[in-house]
């Protein structure tokens, strides 16, 4: 039963990885921006939520209506002011710019909020657990994070497949030059994609901060897990990203059950294994093959 419990917890943990990774995947898939500050932006979301929630004396969930729109707007501003200029120079420039942004955010947070570990006030849900039978215990926070991740990914998938905005996003991801030529205004689409990426990052950051400790450097390790989830799942596939996150989560929790010291190492080894065996990701296959057929 311990193992069933571990696998279930790992799957739930994967939801958080997917939540942080989906913005990374979207930004790369549509704008070709490898955002090295993505994890730090998530941590910024956690700090902003902490300031508001302790200021108002309410659990952190009540700050979402303020934090998420603020993160969305911040993402758009980031795109319009910084990333757009970098993109004009080339894709590599965005790596340098976001790397610089990452360092700036980490140092500003240390300056403003000290390097101390923090934890968000999650309210009653933070200590409650769901008991199934006698031996399976699922913490509510993990369950809520997982369900939130599923809701966010489904919502994004619906937006992408059903709306006029989604058609434009997919057209740009397929072939940005042709999209421009047939009349798609790339600027507003990029700004909205960046907004969504940062808002989902902030949401993930709040779950990360409610579940465990965080500090100004938490973004670095968060980013690595997010990258690994994206790559394992296959670039550009949202459900692949969820599956990738779940693969990471299960590996981490199950190996941790054996020996906690090897949990994170096992995750990185899984990542290396996938890169070596299926570099396009476990769930990419069909789509890329079709794309290659048309363009090739």
């Amino acid at each position, binding site marked *: 039963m311990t193992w069933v419990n571990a696998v279930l917890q790992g799957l739930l943990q994967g939801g958080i990885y997917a939540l942080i990774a989906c913005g990374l995947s979207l930004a790369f898939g549509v704008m070709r921006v490898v955002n090295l500050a993505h994890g730090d932006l998530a941590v910024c979301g956690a700090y902003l939520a902490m300031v508001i929630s302790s200021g108002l004396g309410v659990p952190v969930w009540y700050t979402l209506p303020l934090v998420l729109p603020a993160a969305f707007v911040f993402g758009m501003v980031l795109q319009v002011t910084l990333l757009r200029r970098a993109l004009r120079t080339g894709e590599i420039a965005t790596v340098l710019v976001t790397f610089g942004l990452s360092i700036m955010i980490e140092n500003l947070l240390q300056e403003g909020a000290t390097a101390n570990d923090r934890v968000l006030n999650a309210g009653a849900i933070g200590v409650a657990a769901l008991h199934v039978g006698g031996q399976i215990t699922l913490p509510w926070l993990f369950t809520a994070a997982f369900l939130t991740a599923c809701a966010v990914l489904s919502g994004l998938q619906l937006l992408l497949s059903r709306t006029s905005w989604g*058609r*434009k996003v*997919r057209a740009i991801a397929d072939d940005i030059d042709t999209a421009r030529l*047939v009349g*798609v*205004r790339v600027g507003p689409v990029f700004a909205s994609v960046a907004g969504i990426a940062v808002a989902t990052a902030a949401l993930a950051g709040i779950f990360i901060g409610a579940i465990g400790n965080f500090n100004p450097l938490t973004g670095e390790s968060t980013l690595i897990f997010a990258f690994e989830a994206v790559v394992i799942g296959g670039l550009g596939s949202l459900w692949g990203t969820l599956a990738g996150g779940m693969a990471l989560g299960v590996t981490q929790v199950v190996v941790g059950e054996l020996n906690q010291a090897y949990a994170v190492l096992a995750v990185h080894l899984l990542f290396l294994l996938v890169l070596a065996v299926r570099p396009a990701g476990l769930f990419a296959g069909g789509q890329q093959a079709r*794309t290659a057929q048309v363009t090739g």
Partner: protein
Amino acid sequence: MTALLEISGLDVYYGDFQALFGVELSVRRGQALALVGANGAGKTTLLRTVAGAIGPARGTVRYDGDDITATVPYRRIRRGIALVPEGRRLFPSLTVEENILVGAAAAASDAWPLDRIYQAFPLIARRRKHRGSQLSGGEQQAVAIARAMAAAPSLLLLDEISLGLAPVVVGELYQMLAALRESGATLVIVEQDLRRALAACDEVVCLLEGRVALTAPSSVDREDVIAAYFGNTRGDRA
């Protein structure tokens, strides 16, 4: 009658390489103009400059009386200029209908809603839920033209629509173009097949190494066009 499209003194570069040299071109409203020339003569460059994909170093592009040389592509589409790019360039992960709807994003008017497009292109109406990659070459080309028509253009630029297609399919595409012309569209057609270009259009412009070598009505002697095409004056050829 004034020109719908008026190009003068156009110099276009790719880096240090000059692709167009002082090109002059004028297209009247309702006209169909064939743009011919050897590979690398600058035909695609000229179309892409009119569509706004490339900015010229010198010269002006005037459309409907206004200077649009520095106008961004989507504003040109709003004003009624649409391009069918070389190689079709459909969005592979979008369905046929989604491809057409993306083309309608900056439409100049609502003169070409989906049902009218499906009437004009019966070839693709029953394929609307398929992805571009599941279609034959001719169907893909029809979708590319339909995507441009969804923008309700007054000026339609067509780049090598018959490339790689069977003659019977090309015939069907040109029948569609004839129908579009009757509905009032102005066409600029880049075409390798000289006979077809002359038959479908009423004026022909031949480019040679980035310069206009010949501008003539399509009733011109084919030998004159061929001479301009290869850079010989008539009678030089063995």
